[in-house]
């Protein structure tokens, strides 16, 4: 693939996806992980928009970053915020 602005942007988005996923998995604070997961979902929506899937970008932004995150937050408030030792 010839280096172009679009390709570079894709590489950047994909590396950010990897970073946020790893951070979301490794953080000990559950609230932080959920927020990172929300950021991951938003980046994913951007990535899908880059791949010419606007329907899915819209859905992922509403469902993945919106509803799923809120469900996670509710679950955390109903349980506990930190991981146990």
């Amino acid at each position, binding site marked *: 693939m010839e280096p172009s602005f679009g390709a570079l942007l894709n590489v950047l988005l994909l590396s950010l996806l990897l970073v946020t996923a790893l951070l979301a998995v490794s953080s000990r604070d559950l609230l932080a992980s959920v927020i990172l997961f929300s950021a991951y979902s938003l980046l994913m929506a951007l990535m899908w928009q880059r791949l010419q899937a606007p*329907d899915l970008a819209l859905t992922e932004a509403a469902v993945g970053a*919106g509803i799923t995150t809120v469900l996670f937050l*509710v*679950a955390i408030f109903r349980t506990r915020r930190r991981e146990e030792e």
Partner: protein
Amino acid sequence: MKRLVSLLFIGALALLLLYVVSKMPPMGEPTNPTMTHVVPRYLEKSEGEAHARNVVTGVIINYRGFDTLGEVTVIYCALAAVLAVLGREKRGRIRDYVELSGIPSSVIVRTMVALVVPFIVLFSLYVILHGEMSPGGGFQGGAVIGASMIIFTTVFGLHLSSVKVPLKVRAALEGSAVITFFLVGIAGILGGGNFLAYAWPRVSQSLQPALVTWLTVLVEVGIGLGGAMVFVSILFAMVREEGADEPLA
């Protein structure tokens, strides 16, 4: 020891998957099997056959309608599952963490949310009804409505939002997606075609485009309302506190 084995397993799986990926057809080439086999027909004919300018909507509602019937059944099933696990909230005795935390949200937030939510609902209606021509559709719009209710709930508390969207309304609309879809499917059989046929053979050719369009809109609205209500009900069931009839601390 167990951790090491698991890590090795995941690492080996990653290497295998990367190897498989390296053997796959190169991404984005127009000569790939995915680009040459089934898809050309969708791209070229969906406007004439499914009467949807947005090809994704055409595929979802029309060509692969049964998957979407399955999809709305999945989300209805998720609601039934959550209710089977947590139980439905009861009227007049609901409380949630917003009230329990004792910290009211700030005036700015409350005003903003109260102002914005009607516009979000308006936008989502647009998304639902324009699904056939622009990106969006029933489920996306339903999700946006659900999200707006969720914002409202997190700011104003469960009690007020369950006054705005009473249990009776939700309970009546939750199954609407499945019911609409099934009735449209049966109508396809009665119209002389197969289950989920939109262009009924018994209707004259000239009326068929309008029929397909209207049935698509009907299904989209059903999915939108059903999806939104299911999301709101799932959230309410999860927010509800057990033993909430005790006095507030």
